[in-house]
């Protein structure tokens, strides 16, 4: 049971370049205790900005500390969406596939949802135009706020560490 992995293994994980046998071992073994800290450190080195990462939020997205009491959702391109407890999709660019023609760009004929029953909502970063999420929704459905992490409980009670601030970074 590894309490920790070598730094280069974690870098390869973040880069999605681990070999299958390495991945298989990683999945089969007990989980290492410092994974969060290691991944966070690697990600912090990879981004071009200085705001300390509090948590990786989704692929390309982070919750970062702007001050000791202000956290925002930020893309790795540098675009800042909103406060950490708000739904970033409200600040994104959106394209909706709700016609047969739009569906046929992705799926063959007859193998896509019926536009009257379901639409695909594509959310892009206004900064880098990366596609961050695709949701398959019944028309008229509200935007879903998918993840509200309890950061205070996580840092204070689960890993017993101070929450990063610009001063501590």
């Amino acid at each position, binding site marked *: 049971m590894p309490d920790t992995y070598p730094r280069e293994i974690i870098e390869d994980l973040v880069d999605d370049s681990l070999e299958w046998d390495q991945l298989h071992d990683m999945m089969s073994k007990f989980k290492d205790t410092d994974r969060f800290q290691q991944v966070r450190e690697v990600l912090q080195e990879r981004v071009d900005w200085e705001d300390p990462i509090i948590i990786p939020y989704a692929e390309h997205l982070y919750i970062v500390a702007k001050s000791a009491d202000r956290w925002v959702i930020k893309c790795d391109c540098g675009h800042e969406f909103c406060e950490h407890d708000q739904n970033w999709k409200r600040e994104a660019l959106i394209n909706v596939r709700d016609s047969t023609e739009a569906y046929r760009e992705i799926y*063959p004929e007859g193998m896509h949802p019926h536009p009257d029953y379901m639409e695909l909502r594509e959310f892009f970063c206004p900064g880098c135009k990366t596609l961050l999420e695709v949701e398959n929704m019944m028309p008229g459905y509200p935007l879903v706020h998918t*993840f509200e992490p309890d950061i205070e409980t996580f840092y204070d009670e*689960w890993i017993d560490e101070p929450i990063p601030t610009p001063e501590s970074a």
Partner: protein
Amino acid sequence: MSSEHDASETQSVGEQAAEDEDVTYPRMRREQELVEEKLEDLGEGIGWNGKTLKTQMEGVEERTDSTDHYDGQEELELKSENPIEYEQMFSQLRGDLVTARETSKEVAATPIVEQEGELCYGLFTPEGDSIAVSTGIIVHIHTMSEAIKYMINHDFEESPGIEPGDVFVNNDTHVGNVHPCDIATLIPIFHEGELVAWAGGVTHVIDTGAIGPGSMNVSQASRFGDGAHYCRKIGEDFELYNSWEKDYVDKTRTPEFLKLDERTRMTGCLMIRDAVKELIDEYGVDEFKQLSRESVEDGRRGFRNRIKRTMLPGTYRGVSFVDALYEGQENLTREYANENHIMHAPSELHVREDGTFQVSFEGANKWGWHPYNCTPAAIQGGIWVMLTQTVIPNENVNDGAYYACDFHLPEGSWANTQNTETAHAYAWHYLVSAWAPLWQHLSRGYYARGFWEEINAGNANTSNWLQGGGIDQFDKLHAVNSFEAACEGVGARYVEDGEPHAAAIWNPEGDMGDAEVWERTEPLPFLGRAVKPNTGGPGRRAGGAGFESLRTVSDVTRWLLYEMGNGYMTSDSGLFGGYPAASGYILNAQNTDLKQRFENGEEYPQHDLDPESGAFEAQIDGDITRTPKGISTPKEFEDHDLYLNYLRGGSGLGDPLERDPEEVLSDIHDGYVLPRHAEDAYGVVVEQVSEDAKHNSAVDGEFEIDEAATRDRREEMMDERAEEAVPASEWYEEQRERIQAERDLIDDVKKTYVSSMRMSEQFTDFFRNFWDLSEDFEFNLSDEAEKSLEYRFGSGFKRKWDNYTRSHESWHGVGREDEPVVPYTWTDRSLKDLSGPSASFDERTRATDDD
């Protein structure tokens, strides 16, 4: 079958009886004498220390409730004092359960059990909590648990009695099952006059006598078309009652297969009983009892620990939908069932500060006149089997995980009908679709925590189901249920593409099965079987591809076939920018010229790899049905007709424009992606450099990447995104106006919203608040839709359980005006407003700074 048949075996009890070689099951006879003495002479129950089972179960629930530890096991004494012995005993049990499964499945004759492994075994405490499980379709570990609790709670101990050598059966969904085609055999295990455990096994049978042939018919409106239901004692002295053997075989179209399935389950259960006896002989009964209690608490703690180790506390939300289209279908059992349904499954997960795992479906819409409704046992067992594939992928799997989770399943919704009129024959259609967001909840937690090797975009919609029956090639009444559906593409992972044609979520060890074996039991020869392109969702990591089989019909009379799967909706979304898997469609050909083509040596269809190519239609003459729907009711097929069995793919992960073009090229050559979609979905421009490809499937080296054109195309696509996408605020205003005007919203969609609003005040508030609608906003429905809702909401409840135990209180959802057991936070409130893991919004007094 049992070692008790071996007269040379040394017996620790019942020695006198064992000396008599004419007595079978001498241990059982001795146990029967002891139980008779307790019941009749001493007036005691069969539980521990003379308690009745019901009293014993109430005690376990009370201690669990008051201590927050299973059965009050605050200290794991056996594990802490003698950890090696604890592990040895548990591993021995686990090994014996797996052995029972692997051995007994050879008794079965159906490919469903023998090829696909659609069976499982569990060992349970006297109160019905699972201690250890085999591999296989372990969703049924928890459903069997509920069946045992039902029998205890409904005084089976008094009538018909629970005694050594008894055999019980259950397949009733409302007692504890997913659907009636999963039949459970349960036998009690006694030691010195006390019930020490239950052994249980489940197999998925071919046919349960539903209104249409096959194990999961789709044309019925109610339970009364689902097939036969049983929850009863069916034998004693380990012999099945004559009346049972004469009875149930006439309630199925496939009696011989069901008889062998029953022997399969009996074999496994008796093997488990022997294993328990051996363990008790070796370690003593007190140690066994202690193990049975501690292992459940150990499982509960293991689950909590794993959550705290790999997830982030907080709230995770998602929603999924799937279609069940019945408007215009033929052969429906009721005229009022002639309508379309959409499943609405809002999914909310709270991971609380102590690792508590709370799942809520508040906002789910009403059940329907279709066989896709669910019971709490189905939902809880289903989620449990899903969790074993991600949170607890180890041997320490038992009902401890169930005790670590809180569920809120709105009473009267499709997720908890509490009405024995509802049909459940293929509850999985809704189940599998409904837990799609749960994969994503977990994946978001794993992402935030850094365990990226565990991230998975989701599972496939596990269809199509090829089913039917009639007079087969042996001139016998027969039914078929192809379990090729146990093999679907799976969702993409963060670090790998989804596995193509791999497994189904409900059976982690599923397989497509050998074509030759299916052909032995189904008069449906294969014309072709191949990977199906563009079934997996595009993404940086692509969803695993599904596959297809093209079947014909041979040597049958009055033969029916039908389809079951998603069509107008795709149930699993992609993750982090990946796209959902493709949805389904139906392709049949009837009254064909296939026979003439065979005789003349002409080409005939083997595939439908590219539905747009026209290849299928060019190779067959006949009445061709090609429709993007997923469900059809039984329809007659004749020799040389054609049926496409399309098994779905998994969803994708990540922005497709980040996928390495070389991998897209491999996708083309492997048959996962049609060349034209390389550019549309991935921005990869390829050119054909060889003409060697056949059957629409590329071969290695046929295509090459145009690197410059790919670079240009991807840049163009980024520009197009910027030009075509709009700020979400702009979109919001347009949509709000659309909803207010009810513009471009079809009746089926509005009916789904209205149904959820009538079910849930909380969802109503969420919907109105989000779109800033008036407090009395409602959609206008057609008369037909209004009538449908009135019929269903007016049906009320018709509960199976006469009364509920403490642990079943959550089965009683809450009324529309009350707070759900699991806090509802889709509106503008947060878990962080609560003070402790057990606090809810209706317990405001607990939410103080002093807590």
